[in-house]
């Protein structure tokens, strides 16, 4: 391992995560960026939201950016974490740890079964099938046949069963650290996975699936691995999400939840760890701040036509997303690593027939 690799692999992530870990003890204000001091519960909660979305976006990037699987059903696995853990704790009165182990086992099983079925088809059909399965989950949570999810009301977590360190406004800093630790876990897990030998096959599949097949490997097995890893990490993220927001609401089951992750990954840069994380953080931050600006008194004085886009952050974010797809296919990460095609551009080159020349070093390495 060269010195440069060592820097990129260990030093930078550790420095960044280390600095982020200091946030709860920083009693300073940054006037324009945050309304309250960094160490205040309000700002820490916002930062923790940014970090959990960054982590969830990164789990989505395993299948989308690294393996080239366009899924519209990632929300299903996050929802399993958010709902099942909460149901086990609040409705069935299980202990916290039992609930977590049970949730992870179920998530692993569901990811294997549904992944096996959906990967019978590829490309756009795969996207539709995953969307349909997620929709089934959304219907189950809404209709609530066993009175577990409480439908549209949502299910508040029974805080007496949760570890005390994660309950109450005073403990926001612990939730923040938990979220940061989860992000770091996903970050290093993704790096380990994509640099392992199956991980290289995933990227080869993204570049040119036929070529992987010609080399005598079964792409479906590898795609299933990526799908299961991505989905299981997403379910774990769902548990953190549930702790962070004190319960479960139907929003996590909706197709828009997955589309939001897709937006984040593409804005940040598909197939790039920092890109996906940055996309998630920026998107969540902007979404929160734009709503705050939209409700402020300065905006109310604006003419109607200007006010509407500001009150609807999704409008501005959607337009930004379209502009990035059209003009900046590598996302924000593509700005940094110019020259080397990244993300979507590479995905596209790979998909185009005959576009694999010079684009698949990973495939050769694994041969």
């Amino acid at each position, binding site marked *: 391992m060269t010195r440069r690799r060592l820097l990129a692999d260990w030093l930078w992530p550790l420095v960044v995560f280390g600095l982020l870990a200091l946030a709860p003890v920083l009693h300073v204000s940054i006037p324009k960026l945050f309304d309250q001091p960094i160490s205040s519960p309000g700002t820490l909660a916002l930062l923790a939201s940014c970090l959990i979305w960054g982590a969830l976006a990164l789990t989505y990037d395993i299948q989308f950016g690294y393996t080239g699987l*366009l899924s519209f059903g990632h929300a299903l696995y996050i929802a399993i974490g958010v709902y099942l853990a909460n149901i086990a704790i609040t409705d069935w009165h299980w202990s916290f740890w039992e609930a977590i182990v049970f949730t992870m086992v179920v998530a692993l099983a569901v990811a294997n079964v549904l992944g096996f*079925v*959906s990967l*019978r*088809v*590829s*490309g*756009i*059909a*795969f*996207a*539709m*099938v995953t*969307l*349909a*399965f997620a*929709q*089934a989950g959304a*219907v*189950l949570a*809404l*209709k609530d*046949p066993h009175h577990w999810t409480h439908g549209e009301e949502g299910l508040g977590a029974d805080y007496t069963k949760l570890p005390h360190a994660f309950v109450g406004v005073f403990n926001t800093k612990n939730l923040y650290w938990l979220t940061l630790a989860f992000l770091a876990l996903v970050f290093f897990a993704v790096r380990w996975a994509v640099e392992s030998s199956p991980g290289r096959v995933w990227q080869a599949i993204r570049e040119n699936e036929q070529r992987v097949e010609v080399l005598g490997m079964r792409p479906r097995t590898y795609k299933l691995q990526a799908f299961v890893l991505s989905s299981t990490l997403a379910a774990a993220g769902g548990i953190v999400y549930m702790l962070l927001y004190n319960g479960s609401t139907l929003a996590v089951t909706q*197709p*828009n939840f997955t*589309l939001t992750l*897709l*937006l984040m990954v*593409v804005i940040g840069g598909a197939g790039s760890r920092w890109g996906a994380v940055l996309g998630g953080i920026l998107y969540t931050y902007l979404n929160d701040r734009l709503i705050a600006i939209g409700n402020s008194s300065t905006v109310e004085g604006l003419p109607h036509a200007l006010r*509407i*886009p500001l*009150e*609807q*952050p*999704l*409008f501005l*974010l*959607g*337009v930004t*997303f*379209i502009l990035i*797809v*059209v003009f900046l*296919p590598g996302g924000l990460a593509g700005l940094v690593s110019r020259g080397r095609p990244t993300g*979507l551009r590479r*995905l*596209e080159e790979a*998909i*185009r027939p005959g576009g694999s020349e010079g684009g698949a070093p990973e495939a050769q390495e694994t041969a």
Partner: protein
Amino acid sequence: MSTFILLTITGLGLGAMYFLIAAGLSLIYGLMGVLNFAHGAFITVGSYGTWWASTHVFDGVGSVLWRFLLSAAFGLVMGVIVATLVELVLIRPLYSRHIEQVLVTVGFQLAFIALITGVFGPDPKVFLVPPWLHETTDVAGAQIPNDRWIEIIVAAVVLGLLQLFLRRTRYGLIIRAGVENRAMVQALGIDVRKAFTLVFAIGGLAAAIAGVLSGVYFNVVGPEQGTSLLIFAFIVVVIGGLGSIGGSAVAAVVVALVQQYTNYYGSAGMGDLVVVLLLGVVLLARPRGFAGAVVGGRA
């Protein structure tokens, strides 16, 4: 028995809307390889265009029927215009970059729904229709709401016209040939891109019709209505086989009927689950859908 008839005809009415949405999706995918999320926006354009015209433009028209028809015509024209613009402005510059084309349609759909919510508010709007649409007709003891007939007839007419267009006209021939083998059509010196714009315009029209009919069916229009219909239309397209209009029609009827029967005879919400299960079974047994067109061969 009368319940069964009511469920069947209501199911056919729902299936009519699924078909109108799925037909455009299926043609667009078959020809261009694009999964068009913006279709949800086209549905919304049709329903909101009609609602807006009937309260702001044609509110002086005395006859309710004429007011509804004029407003619906306005909604449909808007649907065609928006769909054509989406193709020209968003899809065309990304020619042959399928994943990016899907992504811009996703972005457009999200931004458009946010815009509609911002301009008209999140509450559902009451949809003005001629009162006799809400009266019922007695069919063998079952009281069938009249609007169901309109939905079924409109979808049948659209199906007939689409088949005529695809089989009897030169552009229909180009579209059918393009679905089979786009490269060959281009090699023959035909500008396939005109056909792209055309299928988007047709898809936008059909989706806008579905939007107007959804207003008639549900009595109200809301910003999220298009998206929820779109998801079932996606399922219909996959089950029916991508690129096949006939397959979409059959699948739309099957999906809607299964949904209706299970929701009534099973428990509420079961129908949606059974439809997804049906999708899983079809994919396991016939990964190419009923009609056997290419699924997942592209992109």
